[in-house]
């Protein structure tokens, strides 16, 4: 698999769990309502939106469920389904809050856990409701029928432009942040080009640099749609967007670790390399006992060396997280970029190497040949260039995540958010200051649950089938882990937590690939144990998470 496909599927999950965890963060992080039943709203959101896009049930086909409005235009679409799901989960969140909200933190958590289990049981066991206990399938994600899309048509160009818009806006927003931290690189010039001359001058007019990023994305989308329709320059647009994305990512990584000294950099690289070396026994020997024991021993040695270094040397302790982060970047670079090239290179397949390199560089597009196999660019005449559906879905999901994040930040960076944080801190004070904590707690539950429902809708879209596993209590604890890792009450931290969690999942899934199929299941199941241990470690050593509580000074109205 090319690194681009890995990143896209990874980003989809990050978006879903990011939204889910943002919802939990409103409840727990900001207001202090520990909701162990957050997944209940995820479940209701997933089933509600799925039921709206499904066609009417057909007992002859052994399907049995309510609603089923998929054949009705407008109402039976994903947009409508997810909006209904979001509102419905918000209302249910409010109703659930009414009798429970007066409970103390721990009792509240247990009660809500119970309520979520009731939701799950009802959905699974009521056969008329949602095809329980069987899976609910038979729907497809929005617009999937249009893909693989031909960018030369109007529909294709519009879909293409939408994806360009999202990617371009995100990249430009990131670049505008990076530009302020660094003057050594010619970022100003790149920024001036990618914002089409709007640059810093338009910031005052448009309000903020994020508005500039949005406008730049819009311009890029319009231009690329024009290029596609007029001259079908798919490859040109794809290359431009991809290269822009890579520049932003590489600059971000460079900037993040720019403060490290040479020996600290070496340590990070050494850590990443050590990780690679530890995995070597797996592909090298077929004897399972040898490879597993060897890998575990090497991993143990690496962890011990790291632990020894951070406890013995002060300069290492100062950069203990940076070392892991840099090691991970190094590891990912070798694993996904270098190793896939070395294989074909060893067998002398130069065009294969170039193909892989090109596919990684132009991550925005997917390539297939008319023959259906091979990705060689040497025969560019035969190669079909496609906008893959996953890229389109990525744009949709990132757009949702970005919009919800902005809406949520607006709500909590305000006097409203200040009251929520005061409630978390000491409810009696809030009462003595003339604010009704009950009203605020209910609102917090409504917002948080609605976000959970929205995430459920995206999950239904992503998974294309809801089973008895959907809405299992462990999902709540994954969201809670994400909140704790990133920083309780810190929305930015929650996004970081979601990225880290899914990076861990991705890495361990890859690792499990080395094991024979019979053992693979066990390895994947064992991950949950590791997640639990990590949870404990985070709670013990970093109770405030990686980013900690955000210092809200409520910048609103600051002169």
């Amino acid at each position, binding site marked *: 698999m090319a690194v681009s496909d890995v990143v896209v599927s990874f980003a989809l999950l990050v978006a879903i769990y990011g939204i889910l965890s943002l919802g939990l963060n409103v409840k727990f992080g900001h207001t202090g309502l520990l909701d162990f039943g957050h997944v209940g709203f995820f479940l209701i959101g997933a089933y509600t939106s799925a039921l709206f896009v499904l066609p009417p049930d057909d007992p002859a086909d052994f399907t049995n469920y309510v609603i089923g409005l998929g054949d009705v235009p407008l109402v039976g679409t994903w947009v409508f389904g997810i909006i209904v799901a979001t509102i419905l989960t918000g*209302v249910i969140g*409010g*109703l659930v809050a*009414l009798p429970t909200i007066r409970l103390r933190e721990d009792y509240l958590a247990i009660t809500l856990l119970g309520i979520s289990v009731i939701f799950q049981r009802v959905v699974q066991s009521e056969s008329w409701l949602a095809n329980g206990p069987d899976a609910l399938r038979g729907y497809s994600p929005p617009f999937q029928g249009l893909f693989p899309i031909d960018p030369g048509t109007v529909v294709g160009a519009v879909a293409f432009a939408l994806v360009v818009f999202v990617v371009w806006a995100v990249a430009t927003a990131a670049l505008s942040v990076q530009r302020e931290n660094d003057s050594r690189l010619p970022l100003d010039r790149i920024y001036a080009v990618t914002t089409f001359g709007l640059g810093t001058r338009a910031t005052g007019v448009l309000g903020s640099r994020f508005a500039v990023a949005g406008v730049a994305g819009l311009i890029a989308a319009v231009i690329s749609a024009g290029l596609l329709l007029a001259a079908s320059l798919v490859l040109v647009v794809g290359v431009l967007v991809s290269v822009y994305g890579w520049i932003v990512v590489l600059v971000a990584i460079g900037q993040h670790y720019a403060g490290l000294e040479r020996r600290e950099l070496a340590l990070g690289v050494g850590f990443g390399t050590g990780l690679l070396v530890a995995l070597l026994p797996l592909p090298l020997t077929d004897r399972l006992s040898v490879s597993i024991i060897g890998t575990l021993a090497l991993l143990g040695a690496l962890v011990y060396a790291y632990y020894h270094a951070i406890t013995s040397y002060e300069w290492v302790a100062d950069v203990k997280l940076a070392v892991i982060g840099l090691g991970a970047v190094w590891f990912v670079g070798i694993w996904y970029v270098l190793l896939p090239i070395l294989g074909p290179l060893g067998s002398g397949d130069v065009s294969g190497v170039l193909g892989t390199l090109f596919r990684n560089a132009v991550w925005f597009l997917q390539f297939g040949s008319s023959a259906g196999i091979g990705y060689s660019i040497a025969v560019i005449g035969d190669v079909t260039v496609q906008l893959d559906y996953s890229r389109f879905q990525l744009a949709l999901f990132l757009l949702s995540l970005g919009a919800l994040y902005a*809406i949520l930040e*607006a*709500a909590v960076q*305000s*006097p*409203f*958010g*200040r*009251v929520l*944080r*005061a409630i*978390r*801190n*000491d409810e*009696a*004070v*809030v*009462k*003595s*200051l*003339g*604010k*009704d*904590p*009950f*009203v605020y707690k*209910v*609102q917090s539950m409504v*917002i948080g649950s609605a976000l959970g429902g929205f995430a459920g809708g995206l999950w239904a879209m992503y998974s294309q089938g809801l089973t008895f596993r959907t809405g299992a209590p462990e999902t709540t604890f994954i969201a809670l882990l994400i909140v704790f890792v990133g920083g309780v009450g810190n929305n930015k931290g929650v996004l970081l937590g979601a990225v880290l969690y899914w990076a861990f999942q991705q890495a361990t899934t890859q690792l499990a690939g080395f094991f024979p199929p019979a053992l693979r299941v066990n390895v994947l199941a064992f991950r949950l144990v590791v997640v639990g241990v990590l949870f404990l470690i985070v709670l013990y050593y970093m109770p405030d998470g990686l980013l900690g*509580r955000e*210092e*809200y*000074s*409520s910048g*609103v*109205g*600051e*002169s």
Partner: protein
Amino acid sequence: MTAILEIENLQKRYGGITAVDGATFGIEEGSITGLIGPNGAGKTTTFNLISGFEEPDGGTVRFRGEDLQDLMEPSRDERVIWGGASAITAGTIGGIAGVAGLGLGTVGGLGTLAVGAGLGAGFYAGQERVRQAREGHTNSRPFMLARQGLVRTFQITRELTEMTVLENLMLAPQGQAGENLANTWLRRDLMASEEAEVRGQAREMLELLELDHVSDERAGNLSGGQRKLLELGRVLMIDPEVILLDEPVAGVNPSLTRKLMDRIETLRDEGYTFCIVEHDMEVIMNLSDTIVVMSEGDVLVEGDPEEIQEDEAVIDAYLGVD
């Protein structure tokens, strides 16, 4: 002058202990009333009862002639939430019953939904009325009193330890537009201008209390005396009518105590009413217009500072002999 707070035959029991036992006194508008008495006399409990943080077992408290229990009726927001929830629940049941149970189709289903919602909202309103009409129903919503101008501080200071000093103060003003969720999205301009104003007020208050150098510190990092000051600043930010201060100068240094006393007197002259529990006799004797001495849950003596200082019973029970 009229009594803005009238306390009549107040009773409060905890298990076998009667903390407040028939206390009766009044607090004049625009005056400073000192509340003193030995430990366990029921001063703080009286404060809790007056400020609505606890419910009395008997007796009444009147604020501006109105019974405290009536002032603590549910707020409009609370009624909307409960009434709306009842309507939604009953409406959903009605709609499902109409479609699935009676087979009425879409229009009929909507009709039963509306009927159900109406019944639900009506049920909520009805039970509210019954509850209010019932003898001896109690409301405990201290925030309703704070909204109407009756605020308190705590003896053991309660800061929002995780928030900054500035934020602690900015939380206090009543009726901020940005406290409404819809306004945080739709009226950001209004919110921003109001926020700037509140921030200005808070900075002024911090300057006055000599806390401006720690304005961005977390309140949890402050010393005990600074916390007392912050708490005083917080209630002043509400701009109330009656302020109940529970040991406001305990742990505050003498020069600042002097300043605070001046400030309280100035505020009194501007028309604010104070009731102060304090063990520092110099402060209480200099500051108070009236002093109420409590002992064993009841009012022992009530009078001006000169009378109190010479009262035999008070000297026996509390002041002691020099």
